[in-house]
């Protein structure tokens, strides 16, 4: 177990090096020039050359890359090109807090809605309740955010003035309700689907039949014997969502005006602010890898049937 974790963790630095390399290459060979964006289309060439030299953008690719890695190892992720003088680390940190709070609310709502609905569907297998829940679920998985958002905004904000259409004032403000409603549909649908499938499988197991044969109350059978086992696979999805929590939604945050990390990256992309984009990709990669590892490790404690070599 210990060596397994170490082996997985040792892979992380290589992963980050490669991801940094790819992003760096795509950034450098991509279109658009941060200096041009900064100084405008008709800047005089001398000024452009000077700024480029100041920023070190005129050095060879590999030198820039090595320099970036060296500084990153010392905790310096560089300065944003768009917000001059702002260290990328601090910029990202500020936005990260918003994104993590918001996504935690979204996942919590998704869980609170998804698991009960999934159980309800499984217990009513193949009747009208089951079918309507399944149909709703597929609709929830299929409709992209940018399709649901305008409808929700029209009904709740424009037409009936029930809710503000977005913005951010912390998680205890009314502003969070609309984005949460729209965004939690997806996770909720995923949880319903998984809970239902797992429940159906578990309910046909022999230990559930035994529990029923013992004359236990149906509620005890469902909650104690079936549900506990049915929820184990949900853990994987939950863990991966926690990893995704850091990334935030680039589209969602821009639509609802949430000043999180997703909208930061979107702005950064528009300004070709590569230090920010680099830091973002690295952050997401670390979060994703660690979440994966955490899921695998915890799994062993939740489900003792699993062993790792």
């Amino acid at each position: 177990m210990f060596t397994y974790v170490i082996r997985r963790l040792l892979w992380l630095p290589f992963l980050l090096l490669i991801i940094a390399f790819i992003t760096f290459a795509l950034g450098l060979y991509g279109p658009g020039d941060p200096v041009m964006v900064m100084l405008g289309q008709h800047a005089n060439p001398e000024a452009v050359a000077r700024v480029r030299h100041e920023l070190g953008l005129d050095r060879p690719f590999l030198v820039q890359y090595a320099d970036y890695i060296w500084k990153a190892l010392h905790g310096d992720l560089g300065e944003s090109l768009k917000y001059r003088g702002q260290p990328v680390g601090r910029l990202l940190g500020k936005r990260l807090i918003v994104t993590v709070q918001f996504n935690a609310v979204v996942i919590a709502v998704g869980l609170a809605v998804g698991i009960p609905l999934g159980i309800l569907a499984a217990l009513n297998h193949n009747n009208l309740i089951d079918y309507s829940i399944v149909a709703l679920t597929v609709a929830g998985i299929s409709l992209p955010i940018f399709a649901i958002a305008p409808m929700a905004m029209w009904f709740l904000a424009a037409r009936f003035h029930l809710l503000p259409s977005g913005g951010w004032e912390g998680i205890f403000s009314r502003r969070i309700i609309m984005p949460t409603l729209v965004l939690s549909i997806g996770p909720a649908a995923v949880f319903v689907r998984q809970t239902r499938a797992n429940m159906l499988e578990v309910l046909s197991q022999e230990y559930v039949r035994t529990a029923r044969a013992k004359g236990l109350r149906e509620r005890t059978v469902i909650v104690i014997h079936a549900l506990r086992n049915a929820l184990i696979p949900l853990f994987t999805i939950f863990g991966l969502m926690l990893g995704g929590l850091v990334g935030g939604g680039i589209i969602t945050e821009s639509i609802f005006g949430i000043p999180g990390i997703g909208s930061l990256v979107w702005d950064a992309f528009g300004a070709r602010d590569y230090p920010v984009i680099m830091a973002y990709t690295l952050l997401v990669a670390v979060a994703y890898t660690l979440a994966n590892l955490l899921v695998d490790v915890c799994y062993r404690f939740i489900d003792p049937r699993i062993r790792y070599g």
Partner: protein
Amino acid sequence: MAELINTVGENVERRWRWQKFWQRFSRNKLAVAGLVLACLMFFTGIFAPWLAPYSYTEINLDAVEQMPSLAHPLGTDELGRDQLSRIIWGARTAVIVAPTATFFGVSLGLLFGLLAGYYRGWVETVIMRLADILFAFPGILLAILIAATVQTRIETWLKGFEALEGFVKAGFAQVIVVILALSAVGWPGMARLVRGQVLSLREQQFVEAAWAIGAKPWRVITRHILPNAMAPIVVSTSMSMGGAITAEAGLSFMGIGIRPPTPSWGALIIDNYSFWRSPAAPVLLWLPALIVGATVAAFNFIGDGLNEALSPD
């Protein structure tokens, strides 16, 4: 003679299998509905030039932001372009992009997954590590970066061939870019799935038997492993069609890849996004959004139906 009987027998069996498959697939009414919807989308996309009442670029400043009427069944946008025609032409882009991107993504995933699962060793390590890297990359950002990087390159490259000049003008370069980006992001999932299947199948006795009588790797893969791994692959392919449609719309929504005037559902949504509080929102904004959702749902339903029809009871 014996051979003839053999092929006849094989044909009969094949037909019988199809019938049984269809029987089980059609038990799922939602899956059949999805199939009908998907066919409708393909029909609309293929015959767009004949179905659309107007051209998607036809600007009519005398008929701006009109509500639905006989002349414009779904109204017009702020430049007086016919909404119905733009939706129909958008179907054509979806019909080109989604299957092509899925085809490349699935083929790459299939190839890499088979190689990794069959040969193991360093081949597996390299391929699966590559998949790991792409998984850890935020998908939409990678697609954005790839699309942005290759866009101008492909456009200038295509302009080098004079015959293709019209192609570039019609926005085909953008379509190619989006297909490239989506395939690059799409293959690792399929590779993981296929590898898992191959790993469990190669331990089976019939594969061992095939090796024992000296079958070549190619034959073992195509005759013994692939047919038995087909069910999850087919299901996942259907689901990735839906995913490709969302992703294409998402990229266009963010102004990358396919941009107006090239018609695309995602571009249509972002184009009309400023109407979100206007009374015209249901026609101009929701309709394209719902069409995207319905198409994706159709492929998901088909996937569910295939799953039930192909998995052994």
